[in-house]
């Protein structure tokens, strides 16, 4: 065949396969041709690597390489479609700048923090890593070492990392980038339901009459779910879509109602809605009385910034000071029934998550100020929109929610989660749905979507957070530690009861010298964390050792001391869990290039270098105050370990991972159908690491509301992932609902059985009146949470709001396929969206270069006044992905004080002509 006819042949084959995949009629002859074109390819099911939607894909390999990918027609999530990011699933493995060998900063043949990167062997890399780890561990103890992990970890990677850190090194300093995207959702789930993760499923999209987006630009961030919403909207004429956002975006194109709100205006709007539901008697009292109680918590909780100005730049100090004392502005004062100008000491910073039961009357009293007038005044986001028009929109929104006949789904992502009051604003949405009795039933529910492919499956379910253990358990609960120690066969008191540093905490610890060894896995925190100038400097100038395992050179790799080449998605076995509790697995398809190795292998090899005697003796832990532990110390558990049959000379690989039980899970395994296993091969072992560790992990959840299916079931040809709890081989669609959820008994109707925070004190809006915890089995909590003003707002020096986020086609183009440009290169390639009048006022027009400056840094960007993101006057938007331009240098590192999640959505900047 000539190349031209070969090309035409391939094109018609691609077309035929695509048509067949989405069910377009094609003739048998055409299909047969497509089969010929694909002769010699092996197709296997897998999962998309790029977002929390969790689309199923099919991967074709030939000659040891991936040659094609397609949407999986059998996958219920995406039914054969992929979004634009799907282009990377295959291609991502083959970028020209894949890392293929370890790189270490060296001078004169030795590690030198100031030296350039030099390729080294794995042996040399591990030797230096071990030396540096031991140094930090000897000097600072378990608190001096840290891992920053990921919502892109496979389940097994997260499990190995958490177990190695928590059980091996007895450090809770492991936190995922998911802290930056999902932590507020998690804390709200735990406070409201006592258990993490959504009750609803994607199937509800096709059943919804009203779809309300709150701070979720689904058209760009969740395109496949958006295509389902689009289909629903076009197929069922009565369906209404509402887009509540701080600027006009692509999701507005489909929306019947677009409501542009001011930053944090969502807090006021949701209280207005609740007030309306009560006023209109649209509350499902039967449901509320049977299954809910009312609750609230403190408001003087700070903003998650450092309590000291020691590390602040001069320009930052005024905002930082508000961490300890804030002055109420008028809107906040009204919303909290106080006086404007009142100075409020932020006394509840350490107990921000505390909460107590209140009466319905108190709940109503809390909502009282949230009239239409007040909510509209606080929340109106577009200064050019007439007040009456905005009010009419709020009323229309209330009409939709209050209509008992309409099935109502609310969706949110980062607009809610990345919020200084992210937990509150999540809880408010449950407040609305619980008042309506419309939660966790077909077509009705408040649904928290996730950004990353395994933020749910790994970061949350495995518990790779600084305070978590597997299956929703937490380190500071003695019972949970005991269960985990039993499961992991650890001596009592091996586990550290003090929550470690969250991701911002770890970066701050680098800056103040608290953490001296950091291992970054499957993420790029120096790019993706706010107030970046601080951490970039800390990485390069403090006495510390930073290891970055990645597949491409990223900014984090650039500021590291040692870069380890990692195997990617289909170069290893793995499992992800998506936003609807669907766990999906894939086989290794191809081999990683060069010396690149799986993260699991890296951790297991590292574990071999530490004996029990190194880690299970007495360890200093400054600040530890726990009645069961000596003050400031973790006890020596070696004697107890000996009594359990361990020798102090055994290494962590043998004790934690290659246990006698796990070694029984043999490799090769028929489930592999001839596929390879890079981890097992590199270890030179004959146990199936990923399967054994998955089964070990799954023990924690089975019988405890988190049941995962047996490993092999996920690989059965007719399975496209399963939504947990999977009991007796059957997945669960709706949680907490009788007849759907195996944990709800007949006659209960609903049972919000989650066990966390299920005994709380009693009080009023103003505080606790009776500290005795009252148990609330089976109940969900309807929280009153007031409006709180953003800690930094535009003023005369920094007069514009800055919001940051993602743009569809730029997803990962930086970190996955491009070389990292010079750190300080100010190539003005990224786009700053702004209102034409704001631009004009500053002498700017479209495509001009502008300086954008906050209290924390300054960068150059290109102005766009007409793009798909249309900003109201007073606000600008920048995408954070661009590696050549660190938008995060500008962003404030305030976090939600309960969830410790960063607010990337609101800080103040000024823009001038460059």
């Amino acid at each position, binding site marked *: 065949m000539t190349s031209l006819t070969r090309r035409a042949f391939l094109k018609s084959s*691609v077309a035929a396969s695509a048509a067949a995949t989405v069910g377009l009629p094609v003739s048998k002859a055409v299909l047969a041709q497509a089969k010929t074109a694909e002769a010699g390819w092996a197709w296997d099911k897998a999962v998309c690597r790029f977002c929390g939607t969790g689309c199923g894909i099919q991967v074709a390999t030939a000659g040891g390489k991936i040659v094609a990918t397609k949407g999986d027609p059998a996958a219920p999530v995406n039914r054969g479609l992929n979004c634009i990011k799907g282009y990377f699933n295959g291609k991502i493995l083959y970028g020209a700048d894949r890392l293929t060998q370890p790189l270490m900063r060296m001078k004169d043949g030795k590690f030198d923090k100031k030296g350039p990167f030099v390729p080294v062997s794995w042996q040399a890399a591990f030797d230096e890593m071990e030396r540096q780890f031991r140094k930090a561990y000897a000097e600072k103890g378990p608190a001096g070492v840290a891992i920053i992990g990921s919502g892109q970890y496979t389940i097994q990677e997260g499990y190995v990392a958490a177990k190695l850190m928590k059980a091996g090194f007895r450090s809770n300093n492991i936190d995922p980038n998911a802290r930056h995207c999902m932590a507020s959702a998690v804390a709200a789930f735990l406070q409201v339901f006592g258990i993490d993760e959504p009750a609803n499923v994607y199937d509800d999209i096709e059943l919804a009459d009203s779809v309300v987006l709150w701070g979720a630009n689904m058209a760009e961030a969740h395109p496949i779910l958006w295509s389902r919403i689009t289909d629903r909207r076009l197929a069922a004429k009565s369906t209404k879509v509402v887009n509540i956002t701080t600027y006009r975006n692509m999701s507005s194109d489909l929306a019947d109602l677009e409501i542009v709100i001011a930053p944090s205006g969502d807090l006021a709007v949701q209280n207005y809605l609740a007030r309306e539901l009560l006023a209109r008697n649209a509350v499902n009292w039967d449901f509320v009385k049977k299954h809910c109680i009312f609750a609230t918590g403190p408001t003087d909780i700070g903003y998650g910034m450092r309590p000291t100005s020691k590390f602040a730049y001069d320009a930052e100090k005024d905002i930082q000071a508000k961490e300890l004392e804030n002055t109420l502005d008028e809107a906040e004062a009204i919303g909290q029934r106080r006086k404007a100008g009142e100075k409020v000491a932020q006394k509840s910073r350490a107990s921000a998550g505390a909460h107590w039961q209140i009466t319905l009357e108190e709940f109503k009293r809390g909502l009282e100020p949230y009239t239409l007038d007040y909510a509209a005044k606080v929340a109106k986001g577009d200064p050019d929109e007439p007040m009456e028009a905005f009010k009419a929109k709020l009323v229309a929104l209330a009409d939709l929610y209050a209509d008992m006949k309409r099935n109502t789904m609310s969706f949110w992502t980062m607009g809610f989660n990345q919020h200084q009051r992210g937990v509150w604003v999540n809880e408010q949405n449950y407040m609305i749905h619980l008042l309506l009795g419309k939660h966790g039933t077909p077509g009705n529910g408040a649904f928290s979507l996730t950004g990353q492919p395994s933020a749910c499956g790994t970061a949350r379910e495995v518990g790779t957070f600084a305070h978590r253990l597997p299956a929703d358990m937490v380190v500071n609960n003695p019972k949970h530690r005991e269960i985990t120690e039993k499961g992991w066969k650890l001596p009592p008191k091996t586990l550290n009861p003090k929550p470690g540093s969250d991701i911002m905490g770890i970066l701050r610890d680098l800056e103040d010298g608290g953490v001296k060894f950091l291992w970054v896995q499957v993420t790029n925190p120096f790019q993706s964390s706010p107030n970046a100038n601080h951490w970039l400097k800390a990485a390069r100038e403090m006495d510390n050792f930073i290891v970055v395992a990645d597949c491409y050179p990223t900014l984090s790799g650039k500021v590291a001391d040692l870069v380890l080449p990692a195997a990617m998605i289909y170069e290893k076995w793995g499992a992800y869990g998506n936003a609807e509790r669907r766990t999906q697995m894939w086989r290794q398809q191809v081999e990683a290039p060069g010396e690149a190795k799986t993260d699991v292998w890296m951790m297991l090899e590292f574990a071999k270098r530490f004996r029990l005697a190194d880690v299970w003796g007495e360890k200093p832990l400054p600040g530890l105050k726990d009645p069961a532990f000596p003050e400031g110390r973790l006890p020596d558990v070696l004697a107890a370990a000996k009594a359990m049959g361990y020798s102090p000379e055994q290494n962590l690989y043998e004790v934690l991972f290659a246990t006698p039980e796990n070694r029984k899970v043999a490799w090769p395994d028929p489930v592999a159908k001839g596929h390879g296993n890079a981890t097992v091969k590199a270890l030179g072992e004959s146990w199936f690491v990923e399967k054994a560790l998955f089964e070990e992990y799954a023990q924690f959840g089975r019988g405890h509301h988190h049941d995962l299916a047996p490993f092999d079931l996920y690989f059965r040809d007719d399975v496209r992932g399963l939504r947990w709890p999977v009991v007796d081989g059957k997945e669960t669609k709706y949680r907490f609902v009788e007849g759907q959820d195996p944990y709800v008994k007949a006659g209960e109707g609903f049972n919000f059985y989650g066990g966390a925070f299920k005994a709380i004190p009693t009080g009023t809006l103003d505080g606790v009146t009776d500290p005795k915890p009252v148990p609330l089995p089976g109940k969900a909590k309807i929280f009153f949470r007031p409006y709180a003003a953003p800690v930094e707002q535009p003023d005369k020096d920094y007069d514009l709001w800055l919001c940051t986020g993602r743009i569809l086609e730029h997803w990962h183009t930086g970190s996955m396929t491009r070389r990292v440009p010079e750190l300080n290169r100010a190539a003005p390639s990224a786009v700053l969206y702004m209102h034409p009048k704001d631009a004009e006022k500053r002498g700017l027009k479209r495509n001009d270069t502008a300086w954008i400056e906050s209290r924390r840094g300054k960068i150059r960007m290109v102005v766009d006044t007409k793009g798909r993101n249309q900003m109201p006057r007073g606000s600008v938007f920048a995408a954070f992905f661009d590696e050549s331009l660190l938008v995060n240098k500008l962003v404030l590192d305030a976090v939600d004080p309960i969830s410790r999640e960063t607010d990337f959505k609101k800080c103040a900047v000024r823009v001038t002509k460059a």
Partner: protein
Amino acid sequence: MNLSGILVVVPPARLDAAITDLSTLPGVEVHHVDPATGRLIVVQEADGVEAEMAGLVAIKARPHVRLAEMVYHYFAPEGEES
């Protein structure tokens, strides 16, 4: 060589106009059409990931296009890629 099969959905009444319009885009060919539902399969040929994505964004931006998402992606094993 990078080829992708893309599902495009347009209002059935605009099908002919959409076919003509899409065919003018560089590297884009319309292959299969379902007149009843307004669904089309187009094949796009592009040099690398950046061009493939830009191409799909361009398709999404065409008049009448309600939905355009990638279904099938074939890429030549060797040689190219930024």
